[in-house]
């Protein structure tokens, strides 16, 4: 760090004109890009609490106008949205735990150089990154062989082994656990399982956090598996409900007529903006606090394992 400050100061002293222009362009473009990245999200936020007619006319661009919480009030009455919220929390918790339980031990085993058949097992776990049976054969196996379609388990179990997570965690174990540690434990009569649970796991909280966060965000945001494998609306996760609201314009549980329908139509976009805020809030508010773990994970993944 101190090295960087010294360099920085040096730059300051003998900054040439070209370098000053260079800096000016860099910071100018960066400021512009920051605005571009944030504005759409800010717009959603102010549009969700402004008068929908003013939003539609393009009069709400910088600040909310005629603020009201009508959209959110309507959202509170949407039982299926909150049902979906509950389902998603359940799938996310169960799915994340399962992903940790199945992927982390594999990564550890593959990281051990003395694993007999290491080449074969590595191939076994990484090959599906590059080739797969495809949607239809997978569907047929899940439906006709395992009868899992439209069940809780189909959302958390069949797709829980993720080759990429295994690669990243394996690299972590290879680079952060010294081989001498295992040698020492072995001399003390410690077996593989005890070593894994009592030594490896406590030393690997960082990688557990990385994988858990990736898995949780993945579960929270996915709609594809639910669309393919679920039939009963009561099991639908949040994202599938969100698709019905945002893309298919299905807002009311029952068909409406007359003035109620017209009123709902007027508020349709307001409800959509509100739904976006409500569904994205947990991840967006959590993200700045845990972002260092996400970055760490990508950087471990970038190391050649």
């Amino acid at each position: 760090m101190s090295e960087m400050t010294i360099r920085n100061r040096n730059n300051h002293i003998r900054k040439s004109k070209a370098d000053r222009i260079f800096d000016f362009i860099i910071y100018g473009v960066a400021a512009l890009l920051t605005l571009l990245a944030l504005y759409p999200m800010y717009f959603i936020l102010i549009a969700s609490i402004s008068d929908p007619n003013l939003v539609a006319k393009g009069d709400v661009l910088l600040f909310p106008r005629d603020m009201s919480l009508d959209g959110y009030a309507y959202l509170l009455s949407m039982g299926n949205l909150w049902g979906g919220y509950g389902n998603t929390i359940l799938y996310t918790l169960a799915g994340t735990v399962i992903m940790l339980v199945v992927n982390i031990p594999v990564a550890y085993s593959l990281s051990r150089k003395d694993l007999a058949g290491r080449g074969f097992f590595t191939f076994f776990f990484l090959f599906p990154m590059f080739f797969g049976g495809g949607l239809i054969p997978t569907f047929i196996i899940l439906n006709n062989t395992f009868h899992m379609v439209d069940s809780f388990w189909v959302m958390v179990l069949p797709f829980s082994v993720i080759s990429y997570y295994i690669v990243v965690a394996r690299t972590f174990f290879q680079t952060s656990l010294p081989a001498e540690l295992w040698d020492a434990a072995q001399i003390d009569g410690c077996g593989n399982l005890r070593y894994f649970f009592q030594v490896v796991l406590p030393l690997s909280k960082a990688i557990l956090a990385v994988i858990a966060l990736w898995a949780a965000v993945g579960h929270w945001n996915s709609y594809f598996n639910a669309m393919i494998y679920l039939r009963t609306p009561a099991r639908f996760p949040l994202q599938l409900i969100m698709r019905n609201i945002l893309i298919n314009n299905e807002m009311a549980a029952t068909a409406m007529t007359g003035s109620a329908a017209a009123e709902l139509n007027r508020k349709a976009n307001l409800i959509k903006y509100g739904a976006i805020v409500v569904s994205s809030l947990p991840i967006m508010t959590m993200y700045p606090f845990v972002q260092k773990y996400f970055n760490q994970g990508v950087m471990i993944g970038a190391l050649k394992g």
Partner: protein
Amino acid sequence: MRRTESMRGPSVLVRAGRNWGLYLLMLPAMVIFICFTYLPMYGVIIAFKDFRPAMGIWGSAWAGLKYFLRYFNSYMFTNTITNTLVISLYTIAVTFPLPIILALMCNQMYARRFKKFFQVSTYLPHFISTVVMCGMIIMFLSPSSGVIPKICSLAGIQTGDLMGNAGAFSSIYVWTEVWQHVGWDSIMYIAALSAVDPQLYEAAEVDGASKWQKVLSIDIPMLVPTMITLFILRCGSILGVGFEKVYLLQNDLNISSSEIISTYLYKMGLKSNQYSYSAAIGLFNNVVNFVILILVNQFSRKISDTSLF
């Protein structure tokens, strides 16, 4: 390599027995992978059969290449391949170089607070779900109430109904992809740049190099291995344009340029229950992807010594 090891020490079986715990640790994942990933790979043979659910995968009658030929001869073949290639190549051409530029820029910033804020805000859109992203795109582009046509008309540009414009589909897809993922995709490159030895910069400064010259002759060469690795991976999914976003952005008006292999396969397979036909399209798609990956990997190993495997 492994052979000499096993000749030196005890036999493979003895070593395996001593480490039985390690195999136990892999067992749950192996069972899951065999049931839900490798079994479907075997199930892919329905692409060569007239699959009837009642008869099972093995019991159904063989159909040879019938379903592949049906796809190659259908009018949807050229349509879906062209659309997939257009979207895919356009995406690579734009979303491959931009994260590199962003990382180079980020590496030039010394104001720490600003840099941090810049990074957090450009990563943030990555965490928006595909459904919400597509909902935002559709709402923002709506000709009657969308904010983008409004801003364009302030600047005197009439956009019309962009979501209903088949010609605009690929651009909408690609540039929203840039907005959502360019920051996140730059992390790998930022990581690679943070590994540059500061002495290199100091040496360049002593020689009187400007910032721009340092970028050209230190930073960019440092990124080449990362670029090649990521590029090979991208090439491995040239026909694998993500289903999720395209499917949600499709509508009757833009379908002529938005029907890609994966959306067509889904409609054929799960909406009209043509299992074997759909499995054949999927297999064709996966094989092409796999072959391209291998070819690019071999090519890269020859010319640059960088490869995935």
